[in-house]
């Protein structure tokens, strides 16, 4: 039996723009988005830059409060961000996120090891030695060596930081994991290692993924279902095979045909519309 781990219903987010005069000051970032992810399921959200993907992700983990709609995660209503820290902690075991820009989400004063250890301390009661073991194992799984584990974010490359953030999220052993453009700064071999790891964890623990990515080849590899967003709305959704194999919406078609490859020709915006 498959249980729904994530259920999002009619999500909407309106931002009030700074310094704007009345009327033009509202940005509808997310407009009536609904989806479900079952245990062991993996949903990819793809679409235009600025179409509201990160905003959806932030609402799922309780960092942004929806203007309307409902979010249920692992049976709990999680529509509102939680204020009490005990609640926030419980939520951390249910759902974790790897942010699009790891630099600003990692504490600049913490070494990679400290930042992974912090998550372990928060969620598990482990002996110091067991914790250290666990940190080593997680670091190894994402391909970080001893020096890198002892380094602060400043002294790491973009892809190394991204892997620290992934190890940190995995450390909580959540029921669901949101990955926002989280393998984009990795070379394809390390990316392959991480994608294989995510697949293994999914097989072993039936974790659910919400995978935001601009890379459709990666989407093909990790997701069962795909939701395509443009201007805050869902323009198309379906099985990965269906969306990538025979897209129907004109936007999805254009997206599919814009993937670099043989015969790819970059085109200016105006040229395309003309």
């Amino acid at each position, binding site marked *: 039996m498959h249980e729904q781990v994530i259920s999002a219903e009619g999500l909407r987010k309106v*931002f009030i*723009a*700074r*310094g*704007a005069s009345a009327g*033009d000051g509202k940005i509808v970032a997310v407009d009536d988005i609904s989806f479900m992810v079952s245990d062991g399921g993996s949903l990819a959200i793809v*679409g*235009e*830059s*600025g179409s509201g993907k*990160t905003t959806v992700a932030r609402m799922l983990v309780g960092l942004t409060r929806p203007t309307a709609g409902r979010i249920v995660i692992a049976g709990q209503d999680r529509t509102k961000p939680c204020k009490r820290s005990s609640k926030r902690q419980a939520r951390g075991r249910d759902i974790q996120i790897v942010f*699009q*820009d*790891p*630099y*600003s989400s990692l504490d600049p004063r913490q070494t990679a090891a400290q930042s992974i250890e912090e998550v372990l301390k928060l969620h598990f009661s482990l002996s110091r030695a067991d914790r250290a073991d666990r940190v080593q194992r997680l670091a190894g799984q994402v*391909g970080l*060596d001893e*020096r*890198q584990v*002892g380094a602060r974010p*400043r002294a*790491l*490359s*973009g*892809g190394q*930081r991204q892997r620290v953030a992934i190890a940190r999220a995995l450390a909580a052993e959540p029921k669901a994991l949101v990955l*926002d*453009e989280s393998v*984009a*700064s*990795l*070379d*394809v*071999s*390390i*990316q*392959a290692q991480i994608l*294989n790891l995510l697949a293994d964890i999914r097989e072993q623990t039936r974790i659910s993924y919400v995978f935001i990515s*601009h*890379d*459709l*080849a990666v989407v*093909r*590899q990790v997701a069962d279902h795909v939701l395509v967003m443009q201007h805050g709305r869902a323009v198309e959704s379906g099985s*990965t095979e269906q969306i990538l194999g025979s897209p129907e919406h004109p936007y999805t078609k*254009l*997206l599919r045909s*814009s*993937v*670099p*490859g043989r015969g*790819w*020709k*970059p*085109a*200016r*915006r105006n*040229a*395309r519309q003309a």
Partner: protein
Amino acid sequence: MSSRTGEPPVDSNVSAARATGSVPLLELRDLRLDLPVNGELKRVLHDVSLEVFPGEAFGLVGESGSGKSLTARSIARLLPRGAVSSGEIRFDGESVMDLSGSALRRHRIGAVSMIFQDPRAHTNPVRSIGDFLTEVLVKELGVPASEARRRAVQTLGEVGIADGERRLRQYPHELSGGMLQRVMIACALLAEPRLILADEPTTALDVITQSEVIAILDELRRERGLALLFITHDLELAAAVCDRSAVMYAGSIVELQTSQQLNNEPLHPYSAALMAARPSVDVTSRRLAAISGRPLSAFETPFGCAFAGRCPHRQPRCVETAQELRAVAGGLVRCCRAEELRGLLTVGEEAEVQTRA
């Protein structure tokens, strides 16, 4: 075909740009870089040499942590504190290694612009997008403020941000990842540099917007002879955008080729293994072919070949002899077995494709 003395003898492919008789805009010769780690200097770049010609797009691909960003930062002279570098970096024939003060400022404004890998870490959260985009124009280039804002809005429009006026009043956290990346790109374009150091400039962009941004860069290359050092993990994109590409591994260039050739027939076993690890947009593979073994930091590299420990084609001589960048089949490669391995490196990949479901 003209070839200056002191250069490795290479044939037509790699020196295509040279054949036009133009001189390189950017020249790196044996660039080394050491950074302090726990009070000790550690090597992060080993003898990196490359040239970028006016109007050329040069790709830099390779392992995460191999030194791509630090190579770009060396060129802009934006290095971490305590960095020690040696070798030569020439821009338009002049050394930039010892630039300082106003000469360095000029270098960073009119000569090279950098598009940083992590835009959020390189914008100030309490300064508006408008200030960020117009600062250099107004303060350094003497453009009137209103004119600077007009240009900023126009350039934002070109990179697909239509409501530029409003965006100028916003702050970085109010923009999506890809919008902020495009603000970075717009900022680099506004300074009208001769070389753009683009460090994974399109990772946060959907493929349609990416194609638009690349089209603008292509146009500037054709019209103004803009040169591009293009760092990316997208090997298809590198092949489509760049004339030539270098592959980096553990702080060194292990291969330098025309991008087409690199894509079709990589010469170095690392390059070939990298190509084989790509996921496909058309077929799901049961398991992706990650390179086995652990990545190596530049300072840990043993004598001989840095990739030997993970290479399926390793032989004793790979670690017994120093591996130089040599001319092979129109490219440059740092592998003593390159000739004998020609044509064999991509076989495994094809076999894998056939077994895919």
